[in-house]
């Protein structure tokens, strides 16, 4: 291993944002090249010159120990032979190789992981794939262009793209960048808990390089997608396996995103296409969890409601047609706002459209019944009708029984993009909408282009989009720390279950975008600009969402944990909600021109 850049034997390590969170600090070392004194006191012979490697090894060991699931650690206690513990270096080495957390590793991972921290890979696996790997995967040249919007969640704290130069070098041990070490030698090296946290070093030291693995992960994902595009399925297969264990080396959002994308790619490669979800009750439940954990759906509902409220100003009989009925979560707020409007509430009629349910319950009717109860509680005259339809394109204007003097509003949240798969469907639906003569049509859609013709482009777009989305989910603060804090103040907690369900909800979309084709690929998201063109050519005119909607949306977002990260933007009368700089969903309103 190379050892340049070592600064007079002084060094410190800081595992920046490693999953274990802890970083170690080494005592200042004297100029002598002999045995380290502090270690010697504890009975270990460690040459000062070896300190770097020892540091690395300890980081690796911790990483590996952190990744071990069940009782891989018991080996350490009982069976592992510790060769000469006084020789710290080789002892750590033996422990690391003894603790093999991922037995299904391919040695084919070796070329990239050689210089990473996970060196505990068994070198016993097949030679074939290894050879193939060595031949086919020259990542060096391909890896230059990391897509500008970095994908992994830690970029806020990580150094700016370290990717291009290091990748070009032959894989070697990372040179530890040194920084003035902290003279707190009292910290000593007793045992793990004894390590004190170092002050932020000026230049991040890449000893725990989960970041480098993160970069590799992204590149492997892209390379795999490219292989799939070129129909080089053998290569893709190998790459997909690598993604699997590269993903495990990450933590948090990146890991989850990578896992979902890897699964989707695997499905595409092995042609195990996911069946389109038949169980609408389950999908609804997933969406409910998504509704509860993060603000996207709430934003959608509140902004759409505001537009509808304004369109209904002064009208005494109103009829809302909801293409995305689900659990009807949007309507209590609108009913409440209508009840309190000056002049009193109008008489309110709701028509809900939903997919057929596969058990015996009439789900749509149940939702309608509950909304009716709510309306009665707040004294709003309410009427409800539910329509079951496999696709919105099956509907006809005559079904809706629009009455004289009724003001109609049509609402669609994340539904229209599903029509794009069938040719002619969206045009038909927009024609039906025109026939209904609505006062306003509110549309909320994902702000992304996941409908490109080229698979690789779709894949890249989706990777960015869902990474950002998962990132924002991470900030929703569930988990042990938040639970403890909340328990102290006696409040409820967004459970991990909610988060997991939201992730599954998103994971299904990922699977659909990546693995499916043709009519099955329903998640055909398009950008606001594309929708504008569509609506324009269907003779609709945009309605500007006013400042009330903007204010309400901003307030709503401020209420959420992680509210700092969410941004509301106004875009030519439409409102977009995004995470930091990336818009994720867009609300727009339309009327007949």
């Amino acid at each position, binding site marked *: 291993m190379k050892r340049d850049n070592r600064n007079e034997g002084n060094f410190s390590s800081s595992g920046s944002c490693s999953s274990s969170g802890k970083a170690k600090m080494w005592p200042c070392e004297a100029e002598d090249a002999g045995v380290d004194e502090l270690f010697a006191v504890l009975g270990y012979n460690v040459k000062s010159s070896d300190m770097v490697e020892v540091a690395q090894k300890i980081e690796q060991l911790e990483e590996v120990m952190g990744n071990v699931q069940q009782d891989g650690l018991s080996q350490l206690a009982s069976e592992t032979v510790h060769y000469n513990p006084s020789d710290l270096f080789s002892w750590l080495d033996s422990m690391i190789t003894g603790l093999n957390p991922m037995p299904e590793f391919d040695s084919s991972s070796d070329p990239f992981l050689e210089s990473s921290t996970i060196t505990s890979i068994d070198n016993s696996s097949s030679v074939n794939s290894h050879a193939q790997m060595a031949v086919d995967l020259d990542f060096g040249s391909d890896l230059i262009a990391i897509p500008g919007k970095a994908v992994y969640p830690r970029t806020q704290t990580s150094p700016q793209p370290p990717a291009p130069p290091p990748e070009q070098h032959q894989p070697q041990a990372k040179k530890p960048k040194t920084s003035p070490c902290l003279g707190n030698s009292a910290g000593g090296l007793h045992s793990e808990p004894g390590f004190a946290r170092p002050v932020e070093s000026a230049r991040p030291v890449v000893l725990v390089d989960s970041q480098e693995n993160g970069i590799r992960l992204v590149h492997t994902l892209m390379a795999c997608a490219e292989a799939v595009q070129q129909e080089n399925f053998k290569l893709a297969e190998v790459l997909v396996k690598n993604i699997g264990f590269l993903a495990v080396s990450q933590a948090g959002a990146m890991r989850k995103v990578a896992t979902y994308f890897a699964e989707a790619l695997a499905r595409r490669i092995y042609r195990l296409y996911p069946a389109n979800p038949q169980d609408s009750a389950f999908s609804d439940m997933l969406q409910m969890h998504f509704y509860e954990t993060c603000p996207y759906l709430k934003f959608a509902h509140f902004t759409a409601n505001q537009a509808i409220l304004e369109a209904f100003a002064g009208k005494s009989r109103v009829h809302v047609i909801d293409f995305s009925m689900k659990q009807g979560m949007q309507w209590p707020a609108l009913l409440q706002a209508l009840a309190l409007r000056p002049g009193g509430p109008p008489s309110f009629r709701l028509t809900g459209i939903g997919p057929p349910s596969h058990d015996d319950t009439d789900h749509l009717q149940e939702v309608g019944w509950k909304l009716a109860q*709510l309306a009665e509680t707040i*004294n709003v005259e309410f009427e409800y009708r539910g329509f079951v339809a496999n696709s919105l394109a099956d509907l006809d204007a005559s079904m809706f029984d629009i009455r004289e003097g009724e003001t109609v509003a049509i609402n669609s949240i994340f539904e229209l993009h599903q029509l794009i798969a069938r040719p002619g469907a969206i045009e038909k639906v927009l024609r039906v909408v025109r026939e209904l003569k609505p006062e306003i049509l509110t549309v909320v859609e994902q702000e992304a282009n996941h409908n490109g013709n080229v698979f690789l482009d779709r894949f890249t777009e989706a990777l960015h989009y869902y990474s950002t989305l998962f990132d924002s989910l991470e900030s929703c603060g569930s988990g042990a720390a938040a639970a403890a804090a909340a328990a102290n103040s006696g409040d409820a907690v967004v*459970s991990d*279950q*909610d988060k997991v369900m939201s992730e599954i909800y998103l994971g299904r979309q990922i699977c659909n975008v990546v693995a499916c084709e043709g009519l099955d690929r329903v998640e055909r998201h398009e950008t606001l600009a594309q929708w504008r063109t569509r609506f324009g050519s269907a003779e609709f005119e945009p309605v500007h969402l006013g400042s009330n909607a903007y204010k309400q949306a901003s307030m709503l977002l401020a*209420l959420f944990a*992680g509210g700092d990260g969410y941004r509301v933007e106004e875009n030519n009368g439409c409102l977009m909600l995004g995470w930091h700089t990336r818009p994720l969903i867009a609300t727009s309103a339309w009327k007949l021109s």
Partner: protein
Amino acid sequence: MAHELQQNERREEIEKRAKFCINDNMDLLIEILKRLDDRSLGVAACVCRLWCALTRNDSLWEHLCFRHLSPQPGGVRTMVAALGGYRRLYMVCVKPVMTRLRLGKVRWGSGSEVERRVWSRHEVELSLSLFCVDYYESVLLGGGRLGGETSPPSSLMILCKAVNV
């Protein structure tokens, strides 16, 4: 002699004082309670049953929610009552909204913060909407929907967690 007189006077004064019991002067008590903040009301509720009943009176909490605002449009009271009352509105929506949006915190002299609630129409509307959603979720949708969860699911749970934890 003068000494005895003084003692008598003092005894009379003490007796007079003892005759004044706050519980006999309910309107006075209510006036005082009206000026308390939510935490103090909670503490007051623990004093005795009378106080407990008084602090649960919804008009106290209505006052707490909206005392710095111009009179509400008609119908708010009936609606809030139907959806669970002002006390619930305060606990579930108003307080978290105010805390999160850090409405009008003012620092006084010694550094202790006095919260001056500066509500506008928008915060009120938002709180009421969220309250309605909460009612729909917990009363109508809750119970068995998510199969065996201990606490009823609520989209307002996000309001309960501290920001920037």
